[in-house]
């Protein structure tokens, strides 16, 4: 595996890594909303500036961050052409019955920019926050809902397990496809129907191993006396520091300005 995969934690010790997960999750949410809520170019400038600053602070490799854009490629592609062809306005070009407009071009580009920013913010959050911190933060943020009967701790556990196995499964896909290639199968060539059939030798073993892993994990948790019900204490308590306060204030200020300015 030669690339940092989307959703993978990237262990390092940067200012962004040290921030409280609750602050980071709140900031990520704000930065995801801002490009949609902003009306004035200054709002968008602030969003891009903050995300850019976070990207620099995270020290995540540029290639990896750009790689995450692939996850939204097709969606962006369709969104762009949808807006491009359906937005009314000043005509830019008319070919036969199809008329495209300047407004359409801008609206399409805006959608692409929003989706890209969304992908990068999500990637930055998971790159700089370990799965454990992520769930801890989520549990802390959802804890008020426990009073109305939401099984917050169980949800947290499910999320931890799911996130923990994302890189494992990517690695496993890689190993299994290599092993099948060693059995004489070229998985990435041939006509489309052949390529679809070629996914079977990869996904059947992958699912089998996922089920096996789930069983083993359940037994291992049982064996260590895991129970979600009695209140569990944690080794690391979340405490807000001065850096957290500053980060929260910056995002809050930029967000407010970005949304209010017209």
């Amino acid at each position: 595996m030669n690339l940092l995969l989307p959703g993978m934690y990237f262990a390092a010790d940067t200012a962004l890594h040290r921030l409280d997960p609750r602050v980071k999750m709140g900031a990520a949410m704000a930065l995801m909303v801002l490009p949609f809520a902003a009306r004035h170019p200054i709002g968008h400038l602030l969003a891009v500036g903050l995300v850019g600053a976070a990207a620099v602070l995270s020290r995540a490799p540029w290639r990896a961050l750009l790689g995450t854009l692939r996850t939204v490629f097709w969606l962006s592609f369709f969104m762009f052409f949808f807006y491009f062809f359906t937005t009314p306005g000043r005509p830019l070009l008319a070919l036969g019955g199809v008329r495209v407009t300047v407004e359409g071009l801008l609206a399409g580009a805006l959608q692409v920019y929003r989706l890209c920013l969304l992908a990068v913010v999500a990637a930055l959050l998971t790159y700089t926050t370990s799965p454990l911190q992520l769930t801890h933060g989520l549990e802390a943020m959802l804890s008020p809902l426990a009073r109305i009967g939401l099984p917050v701790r169980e949800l947290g556990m499910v999320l931890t397990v799911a996130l923990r196995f994302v890189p494992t499964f990517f690695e496993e896909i890689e190993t299994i496809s290599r092993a099948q290639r060693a059995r004489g199968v070229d998985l990435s060539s041939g006509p489309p129907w052949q390529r679809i059939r070629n996914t079977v030798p990869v996904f059947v073993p992958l699912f089998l191993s996922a089920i096996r892993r789930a069983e083993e994990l359940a037994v291992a948790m049982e064996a260590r006396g895991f129970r979600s019900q009695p209140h569990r204490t944690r080794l690391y308590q979340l405490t807000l520091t001065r850096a957290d306060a500053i980060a929260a204030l910056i995002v809050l200020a930029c967000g407010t300005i970005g949304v209010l300015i017209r």
Partner: protein
Amino acid sequence: MHIRVESLTHIYARGTPAERVALRGVDLEIEPGERVGISGPTGSGKSTLVQHIAGLLTPAAGRVLLDGVPAHARTPEARARRRQVGLAFQFPEAQMFEVTVFREVAFGPRHLGLNADEIAARVRWALEMVGLDPDAFADRVPFALSGGEMRRVALAGILALKPQVLILDEPTAGLDPRGRADILARLRAWQEQTGATFILVSHHLDEMAGLVDRVVLLADGQVVADGPTRHILGDGDRLRSVGLSPPPGVVLLEALRAAGWPVRTDALVIEEIISEIVRCIER
């Protein structure tokens, strides 16, 4: 097939903090029909090296030539040569997906574009080679077999490709001693029957002793020793210095020698060890 590895370097997770150099400038040449063991401690780059020989990885630097053609190239010549290299990964049964043993073993041959009769013949032959009765096993569900049987089915799937080069990455890991000895004896018989190049990756040096003529020792991504099996495995101190345990026979003879017995320490198979001890007693 002639295999030539030229200053091969491989780096995992390049450009991330998890970056790890698995191979550093490995040079190696393997002649057609040679029986070679590759050993080294965990993380020494054994598996990475053999995956390069099978053309499954792209080198960071250097190259692997199969009969003069770069192994990982996307050309028809390279593809044809890769097809002649059969590699069984560690725990190869983890890659099984078919509904019957027959279809599982036939998977590789089918993709070679063989006709149905030839495929059926190869499946029978391959199952017999690994010691499974084709009539009793062909229609069974692979996942309902025992661990040892699953391993044999998976290995049969590689043998059915009739490769000119067979690479086995820890083929006996996790099997009981009798199963290990039986599988290795059968693979050896297969090698003698076909005359193929045989590359065995293992850190069980005593298993390797009777099976290969040459041993390549890897440590930290580099070749630290390469020579005749007896020469490499008989040198207990060198094996220990790279973090491997010498074969038990070598340890025994070393102990006798330390106690003042004039024994050779490079006897590897049990008969040789016994006759060496008997010779000293009778002297």
